């Protein structure tokens, strides 16, 4: 048979079938893998940089102590060489940011050294003064007053925590039942066409900017609720909480809906076959089976409310008060950062405290997310797969 012309003859050999090294292939794979690491890098960077800016609160005192100890070192130098090396080691320790966790241990060390070695040492007095101011700042953080711009600034985080918890509680009291029941309606009872309206509509609510919800709460809801309840302050935890519920509902709804529709059909069919009605099946079979997912939904909703800034800034009144009255003004952690960060001096204690609040917020939401992720979702998957197989 004649070879068709025009097509080059290709002979496969051991050599030609070997996988060739292609530079473009190699580079593209490496670049793509590198970029994929970006998300992990960002998380680490966020943690590092937000935390880094809050370190000076703890560190500034250490520098002073280090100074004191330097003086000490100079005086002692020559008399006792081991003490001198100790002191210089401490000095370096104080400057290095990584060692801050052992601060108290280090201070103690300095004090005992003072006691045992020289009683007539001048810096001792200075040292105790520094210790006094240390305790003052530490106590101030746990205090009940948030007065960052007074003559004697106090950075008590307690009222901010109380305010945030209060508003989270109010928001979840509204958002959780409404969103879960609506999700149950959408998953179990609504006809197809209605579901196709409800789900996109709630997706659209998720897309509403929080500043718009905040504006709505500030201008419309505040007056509306004031007319109903007749309280004094227009802006308070209740208004803010209800507005935050609007932001949390789409999250809770979507995740709950997913969890409910993920319940295997065999569950509902078995229940219906045993003679249960549709609502009995929904309430006693589908809902309990999806509990871990609903729990995850609520956790993520809490995370959203906890860190929400714009609604809190606009609708809560922003007065740092401690109390259980829901119609009192509150100031949340996130709103404090948002309101005060633009006006602080870079590197000031106030600035560092705001970053400390940021670190706390980040750690809290990170833990909530991790909890929802590993514990709850793992449990949900196991439950369905374990029973099915």
């Amino acid at each position, binding site marked *: 048979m004649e070879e068709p012309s025009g097509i080059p003859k290709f002979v496969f050999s051991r050599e030609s079938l070997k996988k060739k090294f292609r530079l473009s*292939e190699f580079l*593209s*794979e490496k670049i*793509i893998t590198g*970029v*994929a690491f970006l*998300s*992990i890098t*960002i*998380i680490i*960077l*966020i943690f590092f*940089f937000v935390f880094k*800016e809050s370190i000076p609160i703890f560190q500034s005192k250490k520098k002073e102590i280090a100074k004191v100890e330097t003086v000490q070192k100079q005086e002692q130098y020559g008399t006792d060489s081991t003490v001198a090396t100790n002191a210089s080691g401490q000095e370096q320790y104080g400057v290095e940011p990584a060692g801050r966790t052992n601060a108290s241990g280090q201070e103690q060390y300095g004090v005992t050294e003072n006691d045992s070695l020289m009683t007539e040492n001048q810096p001792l007095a200075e040292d105790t003064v520094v210790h006094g101011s240390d305790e003052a700042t530490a106590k101030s953080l746990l205090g009940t007053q948030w007065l960052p711009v007074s003559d004697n600034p106090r950075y008590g985080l307690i009222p901010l925590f109380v305010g945030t918890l209060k508003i989270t509680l109010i928001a979840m009291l509204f958002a959780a039942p*409404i*969103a879960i*029941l609506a999700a149950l*309606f*959408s998953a*179990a009872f*609504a006809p197809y066409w209605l579901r196709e*309206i*409800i789900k*996109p*509509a*709630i*997706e*659209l609510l998720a*897309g*509403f*900017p*929080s*500043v*718009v*919800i*905040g*504006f*709505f709460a*500030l*201008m419309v809801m505040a007056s509306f609720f004031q007319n109903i309840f007749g309280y004094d302050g227009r802006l308070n935890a209740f208004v803010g909480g209800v507005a935050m519920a609007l932001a949390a509902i789409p999250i809770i709804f979507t995740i709950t809906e997913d969890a409910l529709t993920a319940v295997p059909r065999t569950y509902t069919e078995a229940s219906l076959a045993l003679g249960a*009605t*549709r*609502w*009995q099946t929904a309430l006693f079979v589908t809902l309990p089976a999806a509990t871990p997912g609903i729990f995850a939904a609520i956790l*993520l909703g809490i995370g959203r409310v906890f*860190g*929400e*800034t*714009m609604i809190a*800034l606009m609708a809560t009144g922003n007065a740092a008060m401690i109390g259980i009255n829901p119609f009192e003004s509150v100031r949340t952690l*996130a709103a404090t950062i*948002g309101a005060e*960060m633009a006006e602080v001096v870079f590197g000031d204690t106030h600035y560092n405290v*705001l*970053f400390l609040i*940021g670190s706390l*917020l*980040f750690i809290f939401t*990170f833990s909530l*997310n991790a909890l929802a992720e590993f514990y709850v979702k793992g449990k949900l998957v196991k439950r369905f797969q374990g029973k099915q197989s």
Partner: protein
Amino acid sequence: MSKRKSITGGFFIGITAFSAFLILAVIIILLAVIIHGGKGTFSWEFLTAFPEDGMMKGGIFPAIFGTVFLVLIMSVAAVPFGTITAIYLTEYAHEKSILAQTIRFAVRTLATVPSIIFGLFGLGFFIKFVGGGMDNFFLGGELKWGQPNILWASLTMALLTLPVVIVSVEEAIRTVPRELREASLALGATKWETIKRIVIPGSRSGIMTGTILAVSRGAGEVAPILFTGAAYYLATLPTSLSDQFMNLGYHIYIMATQSANVDQTLPIQFATTMVLLLLTFTLNLAAVIIRSRLRRKAK
């Protein structure tokens, strides 16, 4: 079935239906109130004019311009990186590998970090660390990049919207049929060629949805830009990356809480809110429609 049970059942279904309709009603009321309050002031001039009389009158053009500028730079940063991460997760990584799971966890964490934290990060990392470092290195300490500007605000926003892009693109890539990939590989194309010629074109609508959702999110978020570049009032438009900018959401916040006379500017506030709401609403609606088509195709 006893009568009592059917009454309980009706009551129960009624409550769930009530909850669902309550949410729908709130959405409609919110839209209606904002549009009702804003439509009187809304006009072509309002969109294209500068604010006048200390923002008591006039339009919101600089705020619109600043918002568009912001989301443009943000998309340029977020969309390629998001798409590539999604490609890695679907095409290169093994589903069960520790690395892939860590990346997924990081993406989901990134999506739940409060937006104000991104603002703090932008301040600590972009402005103080990167910007300050650039100033010291290139300009010998002269202050240019080490202060809030539109570049840092956009990059901060890009971090916030990265997960949005990743999730959308990943979903779209999964709808590209296996057979197409296998056919391409069987014809002798390499993995990268297959991705370039088959996977990316096949998931174009997903990249589109991701971009739209990211833009909508970036246009509406205020907390990350509070102290990374947004300005209260500027007489000129931002022309370079080191300029500050005005922003729709920030404009609403400032006008509603810190302006000299809140009541007098109320119509402007409502109209600005209406513009922002309609902007994000339209973008989200487009994304919802594209995505529902995509999902139907996947089935």
